[in-house]
């Protein structure tokens, strides 16, 4: 059977950086991506990123992806398999995948899971009408395929994704009727909210969607205010004529492979669902299996890239590669701390606290 030193599952920012870091230190890496191109979420991010220069802040996601791709393709230690979906991880360490209509098997010494996250849905009446999308799907339609989803959109969710996708809808010439959020405050960065507001789009906090309506497809939505117990207030219903309802109500980590590998899992609401226990070097409770990026807890591309760095360096170190491992690891861990040290990172730190509670001792 084919063997490799490192297998990276998922070619988003976390997986790409992990592959680069491990390969630059000498490890032979196979990087698999189920899509036909690398980049993960980055390829549809046409807005400029936050963070600091080290994480390419001020650059647009799509350009960051190109930069990383170049680094990957210049490294002879990396083999890239696109259109290759990892299907299973077995007890004997064998990983199975499907690519180009072939079933492949691979035995890696170390595996890094960087599978990202999937969108959550929301229950409301008629939510199965055509015209109701996840925000990520709308972003893919517009920014990867150049197709707009409709003419007038109701955005549900005022977190960063809801705000950014609203902005990109407007950039594509689509009208955004309103952004609503059940929470009493805007969850995303307020600079994003302000730039949408000054373009004339109202943001209604403490609001929910009661139902969608329409014959064959969405023709409108009824929204209402919520009281402080998050219950709809009678008589506050508003009827919005829209042909698209876009849901940006959160992401949950894609962890099927972690479950299958036998990783100890824990439900961490701050991270969007069940995530594998891990130590600070991002190794799970299954020796040799690492997790980084949104798959280990929904966060941001900037954090995903630094986590990729940590996982890549850790894996290389555990295989005996690399010279300044300790300094490199310390620097990466420090960058992560920095990213998470402000009020915006509080949620993540809370999640980590729960996750590390017993996890730290698990692995060497």
């Amino acid at each position: 059977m084919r063997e490799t030193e490192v297998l990276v599952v998922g070619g988003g920012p976390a997986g790409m950086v992990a592959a680069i870091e491990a390969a630059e230190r000498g490890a032979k890496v196979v990087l698999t991506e189920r899509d036909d191109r690398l980049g993960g979420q980055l390829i549809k991010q046409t807005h400029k990123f936050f963070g600091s220069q080290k994480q390419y802040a001020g650059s647009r996601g799509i350009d960051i992806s190109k930069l990383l791709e170049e680094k990957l393709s210049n490294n002879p230690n990396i083999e890239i398999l696109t259109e290759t979906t990892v299907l299973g991880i077995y007890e004997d360490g064998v990983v199975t995948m499907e690519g180009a209509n072939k079933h492949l098997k691979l035995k890696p010494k170390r595996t890094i899971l960087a599978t990202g996250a999937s969108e959550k849905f929301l229950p409301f009446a008629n939510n199965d009408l055509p015209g109701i999308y996840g925000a990520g799907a709308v972003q893919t339609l517009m920014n990867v395929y150049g197709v707009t989803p409709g003419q007038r959109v109701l955005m549900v969710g005022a977190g960063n994704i809801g705000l950014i996708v609203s902005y990109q809808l407007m950039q594509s010439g689509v009208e955004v009727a309103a952004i609503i959020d059940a929470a009493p405050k805007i969850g995303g960065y307020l600079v994003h909210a302000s730039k949408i507001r000054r373009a004339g789009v109202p943001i209604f906090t403490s609001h929910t969607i009661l139902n969608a309506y329409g014959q064959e497809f969405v023709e409108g939505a009824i929204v209402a205010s919520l009281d402080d117990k998050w219950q709809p207030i009678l008589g506050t219903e508003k009827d919005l004529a829209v042909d698209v309802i876009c849901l940006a109500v959160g992401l949950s980590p894609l962890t099927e492979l972690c479950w299958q590998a036998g990783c100890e899992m824990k439900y961490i609401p701050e991270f969007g669902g069940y995530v594998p226990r891990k130590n600070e070097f991002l190794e799970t409770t299954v020796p040799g299996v690492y997790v980084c990026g949104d798959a280990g807890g929904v966060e941001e591309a900037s954090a995903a890239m630094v986590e990729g760095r940590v996982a890549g360096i850790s894996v290389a170190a555990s295989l005996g590669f690399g010279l300044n491992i300790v300094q490199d690891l310390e620097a990466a861990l420090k960058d992560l701390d920095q990213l998470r040290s402000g009020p915006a990172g509080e949620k993540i730190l809370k999640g980590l606290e729960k996750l590390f509670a017993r996890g730290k001792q698990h692995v060497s």
Partner: protein
Amino acid sequence: MLAKTGIPTVEQVCQVSPSQERLAAGPVAVIECFQEIPCNPCWEACAKGAILGMDDMNNIPQLDLDKCNGCGTCALKCPGLAIFIIDSSYSSTEAVVRLPYEFYPLPEVDEEVIGLNRAGEKLGKFKVIKVQKGGKQNKTALIWIAVPHELAMELRNIRIERVVNVG
């Protein structure tokens, strides 16, 4: 309130407004970034060292009004499009607001565009006096709009309305 509506309060705007004297002295940045977020490209972009207090990237940027010459580099870089350059020395009746803009088509010089305030409400029609492109990589443009002095701290966005001639 900003966290509910996306519109900064009068107090918040006052906090970041340069004095009348500083405004009259020439172009200066107005940084409308009121929340601690992990972000610092404005600080990294400023060659004058006019943006302070960012040794922790979560801090809110502070502007040294004397060091800032209103060059606009930070405004082109800011991912939040939260920085505006105000030049009240433009003429005795008008000031220039330079605002970051990311919609195509870009306005043209001398074109009349609709000016909007922080709530997206119309303030009237104003003339574009310059379109400063951010470059191939950056793509954000700074649009220079001439406005009456009293609107220099009000106008924050524009909308282009062009009559399309069909057939």
